[in-house]
Each structure stands twice: as C-alpha cells, then as structure tokens.
C-alpha cells in the first residue's frame, strides 16, 4: 500500500512508492528508491511537502467474503457499470468496486 506522507515524517530507509516528478514530468527520485539522508536534504531544498511512501500491509488478511455477498455485489455493479475493463487499471477499478461493496457497506 502507498501512503501519502508529509516529508516531515519521512525517515531514512523508507521506500518511495511512486516516482517523484517535478511539474515538467522530470523524475527527481525513482519509484522504489530507499530514502537516504541526502534525499531528505534535497526534499527540503526543493520544497517538497509530501511523498508517496510504500507501506507494508498490516497483515492478518481481509475478512472472508460470503459467496452470496459477491454475487449480489456483481449484480449491483452490472447495473451501475455499463462497460468492460480494457486494461489492468480498469480491472483494478472493478476490484475496487467489489471491495467497496463487500467490505464497506
């Protein structure tokens, strides 16, 4: 999971979960980079206030979902979503909808 983190709370050793780019799209620090002391100085110099930091999942897994609940969610989603996913991001949107309907009701 990626968490938007204030640079004040960013510590050496944390992992960047997304590339840090400037307004022109140039990559300043690559995704997956481990934060070093020099990065903290640069972030301060560049005036960066937030970073996307990779976080370990809390563990323990998610609560098991009942099969009827899944079927009901698929039915409702079919009524609201009239298109088919064409790539991994759209597939992830569908999964997000399923997660919402089965775990956040």
């Amino acid at each position, binding site marked *: 999971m*990626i968490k938007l983190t204030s640079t004040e709370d960013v510590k050496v050793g944390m992992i960047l979960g997304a590339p840090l780019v400037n307004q022109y799209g140039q990559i300043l620090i690559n995704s997956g980079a481990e934060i070093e002391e020099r990065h903290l100085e640069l972030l301060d110099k560049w005036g960066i206030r937030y970073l996307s930091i990779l976080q370990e999942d809390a563990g323990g897994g998610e609560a098991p979902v009942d099969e009827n609940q899944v079927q009901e969610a698929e039915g409702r989603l079919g009524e609201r979503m009239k298109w088919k996913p064409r790539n991994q991001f759209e597939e992830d949107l569908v999964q997000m909808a399923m997660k919402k309907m089965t775990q956040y009701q």
Partner: protein
Amino acid sequence: MSISEKIKSRIHTLPTLPTIYHKLTESMQNPRVTTEDVAKIISTDQAASFKVLKVANSPFYGFSGRIETITRAILHLGFNEVKNIVLALSVINLFSKHKKVETFRPVDFWAHSIGVGIASRMIGAYVGISNLENFFLAGILHDIGKLLFLEFADDEYSETLRVVKEKKIPIRQAEKETLGLDHPEAGRLLADRWKLPLTIKNAIYNHHEGFVGDKPDLLVASVHVGNIVSRIMEMGYAGDDLIPEPNEKVWGVLNLPEQPFTGMVDELMQNYEETVGLLLRD
C-alpha cells in the same frame, strides 16, 4: 428563454466570493508579501481561520494536530493551498443551504465533490506530482455547474433528475436532453464569473474527457479518474448512480503504479470520512 440565457441573465445575482479570498489573491501577487501578512488577512475572518486550522490538521494533509496557528498552516501547506482551502470552504458555505430537488441534496452533492477532491489528490500523489496544491480544490469544484441549475432552474432540473431515473442515463446526458446545456458548460460560466484560475476552470469544463481539448493535463486527468473513483466508492451522490467509463487515453497520461485503486481504498475512506466531518458538519 433558454436555460443558458436564463443563467447568463441571472448569474450576476449570485453572491461573489468573500472579500478575504480576493484579498488573499491580491496579496499573493505581491512578491514581497510575508507569511505574517497572509496570516493577518485570514485571521480577520474568525470562522474561516477556525476551519482552515481544522482542515490543515486533518490526516489528509499529514500534520495531525500539530498546526496551531494560521502562520504555521501557511508554512506547512504553502500560500496557495491555504488560499484553496479558504475558497473551498467559502463555496461550500455559499451553496449548502439550498433545498433538495427530487432526490438530489446539496449535502450529498458536496460529499461526492469532497470524494473527488480527495481521490484526485491521492491519484496525483501516486503519479508522483510534487505540487498537489490545486488537486483537492479542482475536485471540490468540478461539478459546480450543477449548483447553477439548482439555483436558477430548479423546476427544470427536477425534470432532468426524473429523466435520469426513468431512462437510467448519466445526468450529463439528461441535462443536454432537458436543458440543452450540461453542467461542465454551466460550470464554465460560473468559473468565468468568479475569475477562477485557468487550471481549475479546465478541470471543471473537461473533467468528463480527462484532456484539455487534445492536450494531456495531469490535473484534469486526475479529476477525471477521481470522479469515477468517488462514484465507485459511493461517496455522496452526483445526480445518478452510474460509473462512467474512463477515457482510455488517460492511462497513458497518468503513470500509475500497479493496482493503485484497490491499494488506496482504506486510506481513501479514512480521509473521506474525516474531511466530510470537517467540511460538512458544524
């Protein structure tokens, strides 16, 4: 008189944005303005100061409980973000007292818009944009055209909402059918009237396309996807409960990591609930 003419002829009767917002905009054009100068302007409005501090301390901005003064809020969030919070609070306040039309209530409208603001900002962060100042505000204001319909054409808009229900079509399509004008166009009229910055105006007018004409724009693309995310997560109500199909080209603009949406669910819900509590409840 068409709806468009009706709105244009009456838009001047809408309240203007509060003096504090204009004073902030003006002062920020002065290169020698200091943090204290800006803090002083905000502090003249006690209600605004109080809410700005509450929002600045929300987990959404990552400084929970540590910002005690407006000066510190400006130091941590920057001039523009604080000005954007003032603008978001002002606009929500201006339009929150409207009565509901059919099943469409202003509080649900704002909850949807806050959801879009939070999702757009998180998407911007995932893409790795270092300057996220306008993302939350653009999301908050993206559907503002719908409020013009509620304000100046509520009878006609009732009919639009009935058509949405009957035909199960997107609200934008029903607006075109019943009013001859859709909410992005109406929103553009309001953005002009309020002289909102071009970046925000682009997000209001182009959030269904995700592009400005054929030009890629990270903010507009993020709001385009943020709108879909807010609907998927059933945050508030935008006038219909359909989930629009993304413009496939936005995925080429937004360089997202793998599984960005399922990965953001928990944090998104937490930020949303907290922010709705701060902005919509007194």
